[in-house]
């Protein structure tokens, strides 16, 4: 399965996203809209790791993807060894608040959870292992 391991920094975000999106696009089964959604999910989850996973020093993030062509779906694993964080259980932000009351945070995970078809979190050997399934037809 294709994989990439990079320092979890904002400078590497585009490279990480290109790795997944271009890799999946190569199979020529994903619609343009589903590729954009895939990119969005990856951006949200990776940005979260970049921003919060390593508060002391920069750590690494590993991304693995698998395209199941017959089912037209992509399975993505995102692994970091930063602070434990389970996005699956993350509380939904208040989406009906006004401009003044709106909080800046929490939107990304909410977006990702709404777009994916499955999201699973495991804490394994001091690593956060996030598995995402997204249909691409």
């Amino acid at each position, binding site marked *: 399965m294709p994989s990439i391991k990079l320092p979890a920094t904002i400078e590497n975000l585009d490279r990480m996203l290109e790795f997944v999106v271009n890799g999946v696009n190569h199979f020529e089964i994903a619609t343009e809209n589903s590729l954009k959604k895939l990119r969005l999910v990856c*951006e949200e989850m990776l940005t979260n790791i970049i921003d919060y996973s390593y508060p002391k020093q920069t750590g690494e993030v590993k991304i693995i993807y698998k395209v199941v062509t017959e089912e037209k779906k992509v399975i993505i694993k995102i692994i970091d060894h930063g602070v434990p964080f389970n996005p699956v259980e993350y509380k939904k932000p208040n989406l009906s*608040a006004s401009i003044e009351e709106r909080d800046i945070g929490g939107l990304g995970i909410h977006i990702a959870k709404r777009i994916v078809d499955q999201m699973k979190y495991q804490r394994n050997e001091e690593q956060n292992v996030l598995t995402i399934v997204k249909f691409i037809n």
Partner: protein
Amino acid sequence: MKIEVEKKDNIKIIRLIGDLDGTSAPEVREEIISHINDNSKLVFDMSQCEYISSAGLRVLLIIAKKLKAKGGQGVLAGLVEEVKDVMEITGFDHMLTSYESIDTAINSL
């Protein structure tokens, strides 16, 4: 992302061209904030922005808060389907005013 600014009477039309994502968001925020003065009237032409992430939404929220604090007004125009989807998922469609056409947006201010 590229930003173009056009002035029509007392309204500034800010054209966002490209992706409003985690990479472009900090620069876009600084650039747009520099156009906000007391009672500013801004129209954001989003017809050439085909991708927005939460980092982009945060920029829009910061701008909306800033405009409100300065007695200004801002509306969005020409949102593409993908961007509309993200706005709906996050409830931004209820919080920020948007119009289909740029002209309608201008006339609303």
